[in-house]
């Protein structure tokens, strides 16, 4: 079995990360999944969330990603995200502002489908906040 897996996180602006890691946990559209070396080829869209990386030295690291997809192939795993940043750069205030805006939008929308959509966005963002909180706490220890 391969020692690790090659991970690339790419945002439209730049290559955020490219290194060999032990495992990657990705926020897939249908739930989190973890990829180890020699994973079967798969492709999944992402929901906003945090990618957890366990490096070859056993240290873990987190990256924030938003709307994109993960492509697992024999060559490794590539995460293409519209926005990607390390946890340290995670823009908490920006998300809070977005959340506020989405809530305000929701109040003004009549159309049922659109309401659902905005509600989804709100749920996603709130989850994000909670997760960020958890990660921050686990880092303190």
């Amino acid at each position, binding site marked *: 079995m391969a020692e690790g897996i090659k991970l*690339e996180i*790419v*945002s*439209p*602006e*730049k*290559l955020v990360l490219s290194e060999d890691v032990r495992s990657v946990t990705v926020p*897939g*559209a*249908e739930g989190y999944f973890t990829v180890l070396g020699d994973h*079967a*080829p*798969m*492709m*999944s*869209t992402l929901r906003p969330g945090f990618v957890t990386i366990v490096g070859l030295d056993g240290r873990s690291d987190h990256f924030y990603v938003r*709307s*994109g*997809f993960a*492509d697992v*192939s*024999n060559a490794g795993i*590539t995460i*293409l995200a*519209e*926005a990607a940043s390390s946890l340290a750069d995670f823009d908490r205030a920006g998300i809070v502002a977005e959340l506020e805006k989405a809530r305000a939008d929701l109040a003004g929308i009549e159309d049922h489908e659109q309401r659902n959509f905005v509600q989804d966005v709100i749920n996603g963002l709130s989850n994000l906040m909670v997760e960020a909180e958890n990660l921050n706490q686990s880092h303190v220890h």
Partner: protein
Amino acid sequence: MASLKDLKNRISSVKSTQKITKAMQMVAAAKLRRAQDAAQAARPYAERMEQVLAGLSKAYEGRAGAPTLLAGTGKDDVHLLVVATGERGLAGGFNSSIARLARDHAQRLLGQGKTVKILTVGRKGNDILKRSFKDNIVEYITLRDVKQIGYANAAEIGRKVLEMYGAGEFDVATLFFSSFRSVISQVPTALQLIPAKLGGGEGEPAAAAPVVDYEYEPSEEAILESLLPTNISVQVFRALLENNASFYGAQMTAMDNATRNAGEMITKLQLSYNRQRQAQITKELIEIISGAEAL
């Protein structure tokens, strides 16, 4: 014939012009490097995106029910031209060559009896196209206040295009920009956005790659459907970055030429200044000598 004083003024004014063009050239060179880096950094994303989309869309080849972003509306009556140019001039033929390509395209379409709508990005292109297609311009986006082009800017343009497409306002969208080949060569390019043209040119190696059985989560169709709109923004983003690099490349070349021209002009002016000065001295000497001889 200009007087000595006039010539002197000309020389000093050309000299200060030269200083300005020289400074602009150096600024452009510095910015070019950054723009080039940005364009380079954006490449992996766009390339991966294209590969994945090409792979996914193959499944739809010759099948009905493909997403309309891929298959089109089935008509090509209304064309949307997205023309991306610079915000500033003084860059040689950069803006006008993009605008010319777009104009030729628009005229050809109009000649075929199609409807043409134009969305301009960038002030310069808007100014140029406004002259001949005032009624065709439906939207004008300026990136004037944007210091560093980010993905968000492109996403906004992409969203606008998709909105219009969703509302059935056009059938085919083409993006015009200048692709960056090298510092001295920028090629105005037309790229069809909708229906998406995938795997054009460099798509071959992707197609040659062994077909692996992917597991898809959610379904293949759902992934394709969520990626196609993103692809529009990605293409726009790439175009903007290429444009940016091209702009500075063109500006650098233009300013280099201007500096050289100013140099030549100064030499010429200096020469005629010196000649005239000498002629005047000779004339004065003759006057003195002939005056002395007359005594």
